[in-house]
C-alpha cells in the first residue's frame, strides 16, 4: 500500500469500522455446502407484498445495464477488505418496474440461506446483484453465479448464490438474524449482535 493511498484514506476518515482488521486475501465463509447453479438454470425473482412476481433469466439479467462498483467490504467475523471491484446490476434497475409499498426485503438464496434488509438500503445506488469479481466471473465459493452486494452493511447481508427476494411491510429476520445477529448490521455502528 502506497503512502499516498494511506494519506488519502486518512483524510477521508478512518478506513476501517471499529473492531475490524485489514485483510488482503478474500476469506471464504459458508454456512453449508456450496450450491452449484448453472447460469442457464439460474433465475432472480422479486415477489411483492401482493404476490406479484418479477423474474429475470440469466440472459435477461446480464443484458441489463451493468455497473462496476469498487467498494470496501466488512465481515462480522472482523476482517475487512478495501477496494474490491465487482460487476453487476444495480438494485435500482431491478426494482425500477416493481410496484410496492413494502419497507423490507427478505433475500433468499440457492441452498436455503436468507437475510433481511430494509428496502431503502437496496435503493439509492448502494446495492447490486453482482456476477463478476476482479474482472472475472464470480466464483461459486464467493457466491457465483450471482450474489447480492450491499457493502455499507456487514457482509452476511450480501447473500451469496442469490435467487430472489420477498418484499414485505414487516421485517422478517433471516438465517443469522434468527440466531443472535443484528437485524440491520451497520459496521460503522458495530451492530454485530441483537441489541448492539
Amino acid at each position, binding site marked *: 500500500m502506497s503512502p499516498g493511498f494511506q494519506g488519502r484514506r486518512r483524510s477521508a476518515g478512518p478506513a476501517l469500522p471499529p473492531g475490524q482488521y485489514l485483510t488482503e486475501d478474500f476469506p*471464504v465463509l459458508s454456512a453449508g455446502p456450496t450450491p452449484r447453479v448453472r447460469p442457464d438454470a439460474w433465475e432472480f425473482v422479486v415477489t411483492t407484498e401482493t404476490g406479484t412476481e418479477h423474474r429475470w433469466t440469466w440472459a435477461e439479467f446480464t443484458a441489463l445495464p451493468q455497473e462496476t462498483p469498487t467498494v470496501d467490504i466488512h465481515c462480522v467475523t472482523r476482517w475487512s477488505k478495501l477496494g474490491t471491484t465487482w460487476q453487476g446490476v444495480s438494485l435500482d434497475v431491478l426494482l425500477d418496474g416493481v410496484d410496492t409499498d413494502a419497507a423490507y426485503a427478505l433475500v433468499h438464496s440457492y441452498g436455503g440461506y436468507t437475510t433481511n434488509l430494509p428496502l431503502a438500503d437496496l435503493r439509492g445506488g448502494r446495492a447490486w446483484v453482482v456476477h463478476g469479481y476482479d474482472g472475472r466471473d464470480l466464483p461459486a465459493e464467493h457466491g457465483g453465479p450471482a450474489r447480492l452486494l450491499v457493502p455499507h452493511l456487514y457482509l452476511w447481508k450480501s447473500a451469496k448464490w442469490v435467487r430472489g427476494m420477498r418484499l414485505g411491510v414487516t421485517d422478517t429476520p433471516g438465517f*443469522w438474524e434468527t*440466531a443472535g445477529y443484528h437485524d440491520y448490521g451497520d459496521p460503522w455502528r458495530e451492530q454485530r449482535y441483537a441489541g448492539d
Partner: protein
Amino acid sequence: MTDMSYLDGNMLDGPLREVFAVDVSGATGRCASCGATGPMAGLRVYSHAPGLVARCPACAEVMLRLVRGPDRAWLDLRGITFLQVPLPPA
C-alpha cells in the same frame, strides 16, 4: 386462587443443568427435516461462518446453530426433534 398446575421456570435449572453439562457430541439426535437419527458427532459442522452450523449428514438441512457473542450465546435446536443423552442410572 393460585393455579398449582405448573411450576416456575426456575425449576428447570437443575434438570437442564444436568443435561447441558454432558458432552452433547456423544448424544443421539433426530433430524427434524428427514428423521434420520444418529450421533451428534456425525453432523457436518460448518465453522467458517459467523456461527457454528451443524447439518444432517443425510439431508444437509440445518439441525443446530450456535452463535457465541462476547458475553452471550444463542443456541437454535429447531432442526432437532430430540436429543437422546446418556446418563448414569438415576
